[in-house]
């Protein structure tokens, strides 16, 4: 019994150790993905410190809810999530365990920029999991349209201003500058893609509807028979036939998927497999939000020229 009380006393002593984490003058911003981190950095500049939980080369649906993330979230002043249930499988328990009142959903330090973004593939009618791992709140890969990049930046600027009014002018100026540079870059990207408007492609997962919408691609099929369901022989055959019938020469694969099936489809159709990053950090050269599009557009236009796709 005595030993028990000693242990209990030891434990309670441990509970009391550890004062509140010290916070610097800069806002500590944590984002779910590197895309959001890049945009937040553009808006916040040196007034904020940004950390992303998921890496760009990681499937954002399947991130491990590691305790090390709890430590990062514990010190956060602002948490920016992608939303639309993208992080439903890993982020909610991390937020609960973070012991951080600021970033709980509904608190001032929780931002879901998807609330003001243009969301595609909103399900209509009956929705069941017979459709696979569908997103009932629409497609969450919305950052792949520069228009949404601007909307995300606007939402972040508004939130940063709310949390740190002293630097409101800095955030406003940086956000405006970002919008300007992004719009100019968007003109350039759209110009590069203009000759290939209506180009038919196949993608692995439904990660690209916003990208396709912005740059005039037509996604005619997916390697996955249904979201989250791995390729089946019959479906693969259907994709091959559809690609042959419509002369599709481009297969876009996210870096975190196996290329075995895409490669075999490519061998059967003469198409080219592109390991295209859907996120900042997906490949080393896609190191920020601008370079993400630079990389993707360069890959795409290069492959179109090489494959002679139309």
């Amino acid at each position: 019994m005595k030993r028990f009380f000693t242990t209990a006393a030891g434990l309670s002593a441990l509970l009391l150790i550890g004062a509140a984490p010290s916070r610097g003058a800069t806002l500590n911003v944590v984002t779910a993905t590197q895309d959001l981190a890049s945009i937040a950095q553009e808006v916040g500049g040196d007034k904020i410190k940004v950390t992303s939980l998921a890496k760009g080369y990681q499937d954002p649906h399947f991130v491990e809810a590691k305790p090390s993330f709890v430590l990062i979230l514990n010190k956060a002043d602002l948490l920016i999530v992608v939303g639309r249930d993208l992080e439903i499988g890993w982020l909610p328990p991390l937020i609960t365990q973070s012991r951080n009142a600021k970033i709980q959903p509904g608190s001032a330090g929780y931002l879901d920029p998807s609330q003001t973004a243009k969301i595609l593939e909103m399900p209509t009618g009956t929705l069941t999991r017979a459709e696979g791992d569908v997103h009932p709140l629409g497609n969450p890969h919305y950052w792949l349209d520069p228009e949404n990049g601007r909307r995300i930046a606007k939402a972040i600027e508004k939130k940063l201003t709310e949390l740190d009014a002293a630097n409101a002018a800095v955030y406003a100026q940086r956000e405006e500058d970002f919008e300007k540079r992004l719009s100019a870059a968007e003109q350039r990207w759209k110009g590069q893609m203009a000759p290939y408007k209506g180009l038919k492609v196949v993608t692995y997962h439904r990660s690209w509807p916003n990208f396709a919408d912005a740059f005039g691609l037509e996604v005619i099929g997916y390697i996955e028979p249904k979201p989250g369901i791995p390729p089946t022989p019959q479906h693969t055959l259907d994709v091959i036939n559809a690609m042959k019938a419509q002369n599709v020469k481009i297969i876009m694969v996210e870096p975190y998927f196996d290329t075995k099936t895409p490669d075999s489809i490519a061998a059967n159709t003469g198409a080219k497999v592109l390991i295209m990053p859907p996120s900042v950090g997906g490949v080393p050269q896609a190191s920020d939000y601008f370079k993400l599009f630079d990389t993707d557009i360069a890959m795409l236009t290069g492959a179109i020229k090489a494959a002679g796709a139309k």
Partner: protein
Amino acid sequence: MLHSVRVTSTGILLVAAMCVAAPAFAQGPAVPAAAGTEAAQDPQAALRAQIELLRQQLEALQQKVAALEAAAEVPAGAAGAGGPAGALPVYGSTSALSKIFNPDMAVIGNFVGAAGKNTIAPIPALHLNEAEMSFQAIVDPYARADFFLSASPEGLSIEEGFITFPTLPGGLLMKVGKMKAQFGKVNTMHSHVLPWVDVPLAQTNLLGGEEGLNDSGISVSKLILNPILFLEATGEIYNGDNSLFKSYKRSDLGYVGRLRGYRDVTEGTNLDLGTSIAYGHNDAGPDSTTRLFGVDATIRYRPLRRAIYKRFIGRTELFWSRRQQPAGDAKAFGAYVSGDYQFAQRWFAGARYDYSERAIDASLKDKAGSFLVTYWPSEFSQIRGQFRRTIYAEGPVANELLFQFLFSIGAHGAHVF
């Protein structure tokens, strides 16, 4: 966005209306009262011209507003864009609104079958072992609640039901209710997240079975912030009446303490270590207590780029039980070692070795070895086969084939790592 546009357009209309009114007011005194009819008509004509001008301006503005509205189309799904079409179903007299605040609900079926002979601890050939119902939601700005009801052949029971206060002062996380005690790893897991069909022998022999240390109580945990590793200390007080402990009077409480350390070794590999203690009265008599001490270690490997295809989890837990009983203290030891390897998007293979003495009599030693294969048709269902060879202390050897179908419907919250 739409709201602000509406406000702006209302503002423009107001300004426009004022503009119409203002010149008329300003011109009023300027017109001499004794002026001729021509002079009186002239201002009227001027007024008409001005109104016409303003009308044109207003039209231009309205067009501009319309253009702005078109450009700033409300994104689908955003506030004001309308949700999924169609009304929510209304049953009885409740309003549709009440459905919005319904908790996330899910049901998980756990169907277990067994083949082979086991005379010591037999389970039915085919049975729906459990239907777990979960209800999870945020209570208010300060708390969330989780309920897990378990319907099994023994009846309906509250597997867990607790409120969590995630943001208490001092960085404390408090849970109050009935819950699985934070003792080791297996004890905290729901049956559908276990990597096996059964639970290790050590859990059965020393922690009171599959149900384990699961009681009503209060749990408080704190992060011990330091630059080296994730360190979490948990202290729990329980009613002291569960499958392991027995409470004879109100002061016979159960106590659980746990210290957990975690560190990323590389971005895809991490190490998770813990030590736990538990203390409470046992069923040998009002003055008999059981003390439990546990150590657990988990190593995980999951390469980030291939996270959906490949992972390995190696785990071991060791338990020491010291049980006071009239015949003298029984000191029993139990442990298991297990490894699970995901070798394709839907396939897992695993193995486990068990050794455990019995809590009541440490001279009775059970041993078992298992091999497992698991197939995931999707994230929401799972089919598993486990070959288990158990050598019981009494002598019999049981070779069994266990199989399991796990299936989940509804919205089940993510599990703690």
